[in-house]
């Protein structure tokens, strides 16, 4: 009961006029930060930190929650309208969001994303309120072998993602994984794959560098070439009536994905090492698996937008759980938040949840309110985003290039990365021409640096014995399921290919 009272206090605090204004400003700012390729909630929260000294801590927390939610909603906007995932959590949103936008149904995609995000966030908040301490102990039981098993499971969903050309899909996955290994070997601490012995590669190749190169430059060049620079895509229309019917359609065709994403995303997000990216990817895969028309996925299915969007919002809220209950950051954003707590004079750690209830529940209360505010503001801005799409392509295209370059620089503040973006972009253009799917590479560069160290940490733990992945009570079942999922479609495909080969022969 106490908890509900404290939660209620937190919500009431958020509804005071000054704080409500903070929420509106925060959500709007967050929405635009999230919509910029390259910028995300990390940047929003980082700029806020020094300000926390200037306002009362209560308002600071609320402002922070607002920026956080705004940025999470915004991530979908650039995935759908520009086709550039602004963060690794939004890659899966492009799979179906982009095709919908190209069909002139951007508003349907945006409305679906907003509603799914709202439900994902709300489900996560409720689960958080009810089960926080219990889930914290689950999170702790995940050591390196369990995390690796989970990564295997995420890879299993890859298999269904690629194009029809299997060697090219596998090439793309491996390419992403190898790029993720550039920089330093975490286990031995030695420099690794410093290509051409150029020092710039010591810092590794970030996800954003590859994603912005592939989507912001490569995909754009491909579109320009394909359409002869004259894109006369169906002009998206925007009316109040249209939006109402979009809402209906989104609810009808996206509820399944939303439900899957909300729950699956939360549980994956709670695990400190994993985070929102595998959560959104796995939700997409599961939504496709259980869908009645899986062929629609990748061609503009509202379920395909709803699942990853619900999952990444839900997972981002989930990643707050290890931070608040254990003092362990689950993502870079929560890491900066932890720093903020130290500045406010709080001690992050397991005692926080017990000793600073007012702070914890105030924060969670403001999550509920910010989530509602983010939904309303996002819906209000959809016409603006649609209007952007109506710009002539010869103005929109250079704008996208400019946003890609500036966003890429803002993310790492290194000119070398900008050159890499351009290089990847031109390379991606040619690979795209020859039907190499690139989404697997972009996702692999995120998952590889989690998978490889956990694999090797596990083997160090077991003195080189790989059975550790099968004998541990949590890791074992996950590994087995993952392996089945990986090999099932492969067997199916090989059979089909064999069948194909036989036919022309006979």
């Amino acid at each position, binding site marked *: 009961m106490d908890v509900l009272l404290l939660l209620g206090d937190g919500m009431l605090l958020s509804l005071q006029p000054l704080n409500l204004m903070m929420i509106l400003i925060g959500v709007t700012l967050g929405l635009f930060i999230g919509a910029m390729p390259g910028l995300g909630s990390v940047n929003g929260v980082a700029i806020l930190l020094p300000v926390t000294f200037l306002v009362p801590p209560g308002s600071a927390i609320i402002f922070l929650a607002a920026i956080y939610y705004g940025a999470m909603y915004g991530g979908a906007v650039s995935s759908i309208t520009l086709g550039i995932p602004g963060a690794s959590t939004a890659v899966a949103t492009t799979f179906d969001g982009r095709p919908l936008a190209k069909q002139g149904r951007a508003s349907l995609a945006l409305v679906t994303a907003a509603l799914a995000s709202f439900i994902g966030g709300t489900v996560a908040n409720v689960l958080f309120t009810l089960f926080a301490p219990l889930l914290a102990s689950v999170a702790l039981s995940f050591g390196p072998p369990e995390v690796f098993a989970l990564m295997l499971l995420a890879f299993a969903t890859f298999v269904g993602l690629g194009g029809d050309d299997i*060697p090219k899909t596998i090439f793309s996955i491996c390419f992403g994984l190898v790029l993720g290994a550039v920089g330093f070997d975490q286990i031995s601490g030695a420099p690794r794959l410093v290509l051409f012995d150029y020092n710039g590669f010591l810092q590794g190749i970030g996800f954003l560098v590859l994603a912005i190169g592939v989507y912001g430059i490569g995909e754009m060049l491909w579109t320009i070439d394909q359409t002869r620079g004259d894109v006369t895509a169906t002009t998206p229309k925007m009316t109040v009536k249209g939006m109402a019917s979009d809402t209906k359609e989104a609810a009808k065709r996206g509820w399944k994905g939303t439900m899957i994403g909300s729950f699956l995303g939360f549980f994956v997000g709670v695990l400190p090492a994993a985070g929102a990216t595998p959560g959104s990817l796995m939700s997409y895969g599961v939504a496709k698996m259980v869908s009645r028309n899986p062929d629609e996925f990748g061609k503009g299915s509202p379920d395909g937008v709803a699942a990853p969007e619900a999952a990444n919002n839900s997972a981002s809220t989930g990643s707050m759980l290890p931070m608040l209950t254990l003092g362990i950051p689950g993502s870079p954003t929560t890491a900066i938040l932890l720093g903020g707590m130290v500045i406010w004079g709080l001690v992050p750690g397991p005692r926080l949840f017990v000793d600073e209830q007012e702070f914890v529940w105030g924060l969670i209360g403001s999550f509920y309110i910010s989530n509602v505010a983010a939904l309303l503001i996002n819906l209000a801005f959809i016409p603006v985003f649609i209007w952007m799409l109506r710009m*002539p392509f*010869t103005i929109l295209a250079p704008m996208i290039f400019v946003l890609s*370059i500036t966003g890429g620089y803002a993310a790492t503040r290194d000119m070398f990365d900008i050159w890499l973006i351009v290089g990847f972009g031109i390379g991606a253009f040619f690979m795209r021409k*020859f039907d190499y799917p690139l989404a697997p590479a972009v996702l692999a560069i995120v998952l590889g640096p989690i998978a490889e160290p956990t694999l090797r940490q596990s*083997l160090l733990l077991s003195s080189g014995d790989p059975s550790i992945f099968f004998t541990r009570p949590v890791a074992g079942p996950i590994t087995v399921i993952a392996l089945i999922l990986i090999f099932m479609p492969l067997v199916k495909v090989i059979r089909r290919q064999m069948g194909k080969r036989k036919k022309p022969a006979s």
Partner: protein
Amino acid sequence: MRVGELLTAGFLALLSLYLMWKSTELPIGYIAGTGPGGGAWPFWLSAIMLVCCVCVAFNWWRGTSPPSQSEEPVLDSHGWRSLIFVGGGIIAFVALVSIISMYGAIAVFLFYYVWFLGRHGLILSLSISLITPVALFFFFEGAMQITMPSGLPFTDPVFNFLYEIIY
């Protein structure tokens, strides 16, 4: 397309070989008691990449993949032109960043694209290429506190003046 498919596969195979060779700087085998060495992960993955390239070449020979059946050129004259003008424009844009600052380069690039490639009116082109960098300046430097490259020292007076406004 047919030739291009094989050339691409060949190029990617060379890349895989280079990555394999580079990975051997660290141990690539299975070290008893500790698991795979530091180079094993990238080495064996690059090896799979190489195998994939061989498969692509095999499919090319059998003519089963769409690009290996297509007789269309990879890029026709229009394609080449747009790639050189747009791709070259982006490269020039990035090269200009270290000379006339990020914002200066944005202005030049936008003007080039909108006016020269897009054939829009002079007034429209100029206003887009001037308003965008100014808006981005206030967004990045003012709101986000992210400093963009300011180019060679001769741009300093302009930036000092602008910083005076926002701080």
